[in-house]
């Protein structure tokens, strides 16, 4: 009787515990797929909201906050008015800073942050280029130092260089070697789990093709 009792308790508690961890992974996997297939602002907003809910339930996890930042960045890129773009880029930056508070010295977080700052520059490059340009560069360099195998900072540095005018030290020629490195690293990269960031390979390949022309 006692054995049955203990077994029953263990069944119930382990069930509940496994449910929670599985719930997190399953939820993340579902919503990462939603994010990957999203095209419209509405779809990105649904994904962002889902990640906000997950991060609200699992306050110690940085990944839902990270993907929430990514989704908000995408919404910003799809906006037409500069004021609205700024609003979403600022929200993405606040979220990535929150993620940094949860997981310090994380290469993916630094890479995402450098992308957000690069998008903020694009709204008013003449005036923001000076200060923010340096910040964005420093963030992607830190991301590279923290994890030399992470292909995403190389992709972002390559894209940034591509869209910077030649007089400022940019252009397709300069971007080519950086994007080649990115594509190489993507081929070798294996994410540590099913929910760790793995985006960008397609973009790296297409950007490299553009630079070759």
């Amino acid at each position, binding site marked *: 009787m006692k054995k049955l009792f203990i077994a029953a308790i263990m069944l119930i508690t382990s069930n509940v515990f496994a449910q929670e961890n599985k719930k997190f992974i399953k939820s993340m996997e579902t919503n990462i797929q939603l994010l990957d297939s999203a095209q419209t602002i509405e779809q990105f907003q649904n994904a962002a909201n889902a990640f906000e809910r997950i991060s*609200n339930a699992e306050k110690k996890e940085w990944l839902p906050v990270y993907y929430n930042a990514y989704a908000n960045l995408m919404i910003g890129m799809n906006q037409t008015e500069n*004021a609205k773009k700024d609003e979403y880029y600022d929200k993405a930056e606040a979220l990535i800073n929150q993620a940094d508070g949860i997981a310090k010295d994380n290469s993916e977080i630094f890479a995402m942050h450098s992308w957000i700052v690069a998008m903020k520059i694009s709204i008013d490059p003449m005036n*923001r280029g*000076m200060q923010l340009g340096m910040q964005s560069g420093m963030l992607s360099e830190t991301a590279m130092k923290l994890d030399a195998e992470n292909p995403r900072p190389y992709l972002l540095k390559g894209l940034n260089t591509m869209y910077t005018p030649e007089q*400022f030290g940019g252009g397709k020629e300069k971007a080519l070697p950086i994007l080649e490195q990115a594509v190489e690293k993507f081929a070798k990269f294996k994410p540590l789990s099913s929910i760790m960031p793995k985006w960008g390979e397609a973009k790296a390949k297409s950007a490299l093709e553009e630079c070759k022309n």
Partner: protein
Amino acid sequence: MKSDPLHKIFLTLILMGELCFVNAQTKISGNVKDAKGQIVPGANIFLKDTYDGTSSDNNGNFSFTTAEKGEQILSVSFIGFENAERKVELKGVPVEINFVLKEKASELNTVTISAGAFEASDEKKMVMLRPLDIVTTAGAAGDIYGAIQTLPGAQAIGETQGLFVRGGDASESKTIIDGVVVANPYYSSVPDVPQRGRFSPFLFKGTNFSTGGYSAQYGQAMSSALILESQDITQKTVSGISLMSVGGGLSHDHRWKNTSAGIYGNYINLRPYFSVAPQLRDWSSPPQSAGGSFIFRQKISKTGLLKFFANYSYNDLALSYANLDDSTGLDRTEFSLKNNNFFSNVSYKEIIKNKWTVFASASYSKNIDNIYLDHDKIHSETEFTHERITLTRNLGELTIVRFGGELQQPLYKNAFNQYAYERDELYEAGYAEADIYITKKLVSRLGTRLEHSKLLDKYNIAPRASLAYKVSSNNQFSFAYGDFFQLPEERYINTPNNLGFEKATHYILNFQHLDDKRTFRIEGYYKDYKHLLKIIPDTNTNGAGFAEGIDIFWRDKKTIKYGDYWISYSFLDTKRNYMDYPESLIPTFASKHTFSVVFKYFFPKPSISAGLTYVFATGRTYYTPQFDADKTKNYNNLSFTFNKLTSIRKHFTVIVASVGNVLGFKNVYTYNYSSDGKRKEEVGATALRSFFVAVFISIGEERNDEE
């Protein structure tokens, strides 16, 4: 097993327990709107600390089921709004809740005080000017004051340095860097030769040019305050070389984790330039200057920053003037000047517990002028210390309260041959001010300033009040009123004396439209001057005056692709009875109509940006020694500037070329008279046209996106 039925019951209970986890779902639904009644699609509605929730649809409606039970908190969030929360009781019975979201305060929906102020900042989203706009204005040659002169309210004065704002003379405008007054913001000069500002515009991240009605934090400037905020910690380690037609300079900025330091040096000599560009002055020794600066920044904490700045410069020049009192016209007066100037400033800013901001700033400066006027020697020394502390407290969402105090100790030592005098002043002031947001669209700033001067042995209390109302997201009205006191020129203050503070009372009303493409601003003002210093027939502060006018500003960054222009117009009507004026007269530093156009265009292929500035001002009044009035002809000036971005051996480079007064207008600013009034000479620009060429090279890691 022996207790089979018990076993069965137990298992059933367990199973039922499991089932308990599955049944008792509650349906939660409702709708999300904003305060104006508009639906909010895409809002996030969820139970706090759980996974359960959903997004609102295109009609603002939401619906989801949850297995959570008991008392829970239902939370709603959407960008641009404050989060909303409601307590819910989940018992398996459907719950319906509608939410009304409150807008978050942002630059777009919140009103700001704007009367009398032009702000250039990189940090705000909607500003009239960016610091870069000031640097790249043609005709300014990178001088802050040259650029400010193209804004409405500032008069086009070419014969002497200083900002002459809305009928006030140069002494009525003060330059403030990080909260401390700069006693000598311009290089020392000689009569009829204007000099530039000492500080490069690149040192500053924010510029607030106030043409009146400014905050109770500042005083002793009856017309305007140029409030400059220095750059924060530098981002990268980089060196710079500047080669100019007038001299050269070197700089090095270094960045460590939480520290940055920079060192700068420059040497300017106009002799080579004067030998190729004809000058309209008789230079015995063309101007030369040498100097250096040191800048240090240290992050004290996540929100605390310590800044230190020190600058030393030496400049000298010598000029020969016609002696108008000599009827043969042969005698000349030799005027030579040697100046040594040291300025230092330390400031500290820290945010405590997210509610209090402490700002403390102190400066020490010393300026020594040694002047030879033929055989007379003038020695003029100013030693200036200034300390300030301001505490700011956030109350509620937007309301801010500020209070603090400052102490200024100027020590003036002057000697003319063997006659010497000293003025040792102790000036103390305290201030308190609140920005009260009655609603997000209506704000009132109320402040008081209390001042005391040891030299005058007097107190004053200055009220300041402004009101601003945001009519719609891009339009607002603003009103400002205040008393602005100022010490009369210290040279005339003997001890004991019967003088008081000079006073100007401002009334300002403005309307502005500001969106990310165009800016329009119209401002009307009336300044009532009282107790102005008079020195004839005796020294007293019984003078008076007034200044009234309208300033209009229009800026368009979008209509012309790659083009950006602004137009300013000022109407000024002013008279005053001060100094040696026998009665109320139009002062010599006021034009009735001033008009300027600043235009910049970027050619993307060759990466060249071109700018032009055109200034027109109607003639200024000038007086014979007997105070008979006449007017100069109208003033015209067209200047061009070109900037090219390129690279030298992979180092980022900017090439600058500019021409002042391209069309060669023979402008006359004023006239000098002989003592008997029989002879006069024109005072015009120091050269008909001016030229400037420079190359700036930046050496460091590859740079992106810099202009």
